[in-house]
């Protein structure tokens, strides 16, 4: 890492000044340093990772943080993923190993109740064999990879859980990046300088689909689902019911290749099959009809018309893509006309998260950036930086305006962006992982500035998996209906807090919320602002906990 490139400004915390920014940066909260395994050879895999997950591992009601470690820089010392349990606002390691330390070259993970026993398990994606860990309910894990039928040896990237065939359990979709062999590696040069090779130097690989038998045992359906014949260079993946037919489709951001829109055929044919429809749908290519370097991916209803736009972060000289969903399976790339394009062009963007940072009912966009070429500053005589700034795009009702998300802070080489209400105060905080650095906590300052409902959905574990991924949430505010689709994995190498935060209008104290569970069952309840509500399918609200008082900035 080129420290000279960073901006070593220590922000002076003036309370009024801090409050005017949506986030406060906390760079020293998490005791973890990412190791990429970079030993001077510049293997492409070193530049990609790593991510993590925010979830309640030990069931104590607050979010814990699992961080995926890349590869030990010192080849003689083992690398370890870590689980940091939150205790009184601090993230600390347990006294005994969590059991999910993993020995692979880590990229990402997904958290979800794979075995349907009411606690949250972990799937770890590696550059090499992946791992599945089951939680014993106390935040301690057991490696069950082999016995559960997981054999994923490819170079993985992002992952998402979904219920492909709506049978009430979680299946697994794993994005794979490239085929890379150390033995066949030859360095890439630019201006006589060795640089990380671009993905075009390597063949693409297919993504994989693992189907759950209902008891947490998996079979590989990559070939039979049609995915094995689709070669790509996946980095970002997410679920979304793009065609509104009630089953979960998939979107894959490929690096240097056309993106995939994988339409699930379950509802149409009763078969586990996916068809790539991205080209004709208009969400395969970026601005200028180019195969861009897709990294992170996110979906949200940005224009309030009830369906979700798809957002993809891309390399420098490319805009981050915003595919407007026009319904009927038709998307239109709009990054230049909605104001998102120009500010994104100079950056290499990775993590992305849509959230309502100013609680004005309009979803905003946070993006974390960082170059992949560690010596880029030498190559561009300082014109392009390796460490890059975070970006926040405020939704102004159709167009976006870039604003500073926080006080000036040290520039970081951003990668994953994970969201969660870390302090349970009713706003969404962020954690961005950084290449060869410590994760940055971005604590939201918006709590209390508007009424918000917290929602924790849980399927019944029979007809709907407990994570309720794919549930559609509707509620009315100011004569308009706000629609959200529930997902836990998105962004880049990230697994988020599974809870949802629903912003209300200024004087509202409650809202009628409808949940359409995967499978189609609908339930309605009136929820009050200021609390998290645990809503179990078929049982309604089973518990409620008030938001914590916002932390003074």
């Amino acid at each position, binding site marked *: 890492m080129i420290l000279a490139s960073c901006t070593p400004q220590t922000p002076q915390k003036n309370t009024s000044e801090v409050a005017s920014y949506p986030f406060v940066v906390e760079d020293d909260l998490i005791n973890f340093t990412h190791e990429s395994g970079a030993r001077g050879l510049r293997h492409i895999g070193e530049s990609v990772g790593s991510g993590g997950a925010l979830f309640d591992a030990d069931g104590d009601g607050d979010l814990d943080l699992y961080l995926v470690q890349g590869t030990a820089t010192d080849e003689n010392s083992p690398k370890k993923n870590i689980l940091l349990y939150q205790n009184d606002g601090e993230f600390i390691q347990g006294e005994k190993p969590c059991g999910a330390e993993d020995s692979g070259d880590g990229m990402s993970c997904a958290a979800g109740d794979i075995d349907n026993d009411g606690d949250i398990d972990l799937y770890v994606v590696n550059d090499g064999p992946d791992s599945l860990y089951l939680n014993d309910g106390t935040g301690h894990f057991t490696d069950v990879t082999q016995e559960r039928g997981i054999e994923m040896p490819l170079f993985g990237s992002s992952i998402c859980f979904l219920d492909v065939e709506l049978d009430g359990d979680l299946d697994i979709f794993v994005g794979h990046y490239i085929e890379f062999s150390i033995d066949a590696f030859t360095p890439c040069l*630019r201006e006589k300088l060795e640089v990380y090779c671009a993905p075009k130097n390597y063949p693409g690989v297919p993504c994989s689909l693992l189907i759950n038998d209902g008891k947490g045992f998996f079979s590989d359906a990559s070939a039979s689902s049609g995915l094995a014949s689709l070669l790509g260079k996946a980095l970002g993946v997410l679920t979304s019911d793009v065609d509104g037919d009630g089953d979960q489709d998939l979107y894959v951001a490929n690096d240097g290749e056309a993106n995939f829109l994988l339409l699930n055929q379950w509802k149409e044919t009763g078969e586990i099959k996916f068809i790539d429809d991205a080209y004709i749908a208009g969400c395969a290519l970026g601005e200028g009809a180019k195969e861009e370097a897709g990294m992170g991916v996110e979906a949200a209803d940005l224009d309030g018309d009830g369906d979700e736009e798809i957002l993809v972060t891309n390399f420098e000289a490319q805009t981050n893509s915003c595919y407007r969903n026009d319904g009927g399976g038709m998307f239109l790339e709009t990054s230049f006309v909605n104001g998102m394009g120009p500010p994104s062009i100079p950056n290499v963007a990775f993590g992305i998260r849509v959230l309502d940072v100013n609680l004005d009912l309009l979803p905003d966009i946070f993006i974390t950036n960082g170059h992949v070429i560690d010596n880029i500053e030498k190559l561009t005589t300082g014109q392009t930086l390796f460490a890059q700034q975070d970006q926040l795009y405020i939704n102004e009702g159709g167009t976006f305006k870039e604003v500073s998300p926080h006080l000036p802070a040290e520039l970081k080489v951003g990668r994953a962006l994970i969201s969660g209400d870390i302090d349970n105060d009713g706003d969404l905080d962020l954690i961005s992982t950084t290449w060869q650095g410590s994760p940055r906590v971005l604590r939201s300052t918006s709590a209390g500035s508007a009424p918000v409902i917290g929602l924790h959905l849980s399927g019944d574990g029979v007809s709907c998996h407990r994570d309720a991924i794919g549930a559609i949430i509707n509620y009315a505010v100011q004569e308009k209906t706000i629609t959200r689709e529930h997902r836990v994995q998105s962004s880049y190498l990230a697994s988020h807090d599974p809870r949802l935060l629903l912003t209300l209008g200024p004087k509202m104290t409650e809202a009628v919320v409808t949940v359409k569970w995967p499978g189609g069952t609908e339930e309605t309840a009136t929820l009050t602002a200021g609390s998290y509500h645990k809503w179990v399918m078929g049982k309604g609200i089973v518990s409620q906990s008030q938001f914590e008082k916002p932390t003074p900035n």
Partner: protein
Amino acid sequence: MGSSFVKILLVVLVGLAPVPQDASSTDPRITELNAAMQKGQFLDVLKKGRAILIKQPTHPHFLLITGAACIELARTLKDSEAKIQAYAEAENLFRRFVIVNPQHNNSKVEQSLARCCLTREDWKNAKKHAAKAIQLSPSSTMAHRVMGESLSGLKIHKEAIQSYKKALAITPRDVRLMQLVQDEYRSLRRYAEALNFLLKQQDNLPANNRETATFYQLLYRAYVSLNDVENAQVAISKAVSLNPKKPTLASEMALNLYRLGRSEDSRLWAKKALTYQTLNNDSKAICLRILGQLLSHEGKYQEGLLALEKSFQINPDDRSTVIAMIAALRRTGQEERAQEFLKKMNEMPTDPRE
């Protein structure tokens, strides 16, 4: 070949060619052809020169003036094959001159030979003639320039930059030379250095507005290469203010405003650019595409499609146009045509990431 080069070449060839004094002063045909050259009657000069050279194939003055006319005519030819042939004829005439006058000391002749070699991409011989041209006239801008072009053809970009910079040291306000330097930096993917180089040239801007506008157009492109669309906008605006009637400036203005999300301004400039009769086809296609895209973004797909189809007719290889057409066709219920265009797009060469 740039028009300035041709003018210089003509002046030198006509005025300084090593023609025996007695012959040139007494031969009325020379006076006649010189006058015709001055009037731009190149075809006339070529025909008469050829006729004379049939009878006097080694006459130095007629070899030079006919060769010069040939180059000037070649410049105007649109058919690439004919152009190559014209340069080949010019080269033949200059070579004959060198054979007849092996001890000649006319740098311009070597420059012309280098130019002819450049047109047929014979970089090695072009470099040889350029070197001789420099040896005969080290302070000749054009000699250094053709050396730069030869080196560029040989892909020795760093040395090409040095040659162009030598030429610029002699003629510091030559915007075409600045462009050539910028092109070399781009070949080396040294976009930041290209920008820094141009920024340093701001003290040497040409006196006339048209040339200065071209400089700012170069600056605009340098900023675009570095993804700095804001400063690119400042540069292109300056270029437009200096040369408001240059069609490509209007189209680049439209494109950058589109990038900036300034849809209404972009639309106005695209429309303005399209009013120019002399707007080149590439720019015309871009402007029509922008208009089509803007209409599509507003949901006016039928109108948008009309503009996009016109753009496609001019440039059927533009993937952006085709993808915008697919979107508009689907939204106007023309699924079958959308599929046809999708097939077309998939057959087009891709523009891979660098």
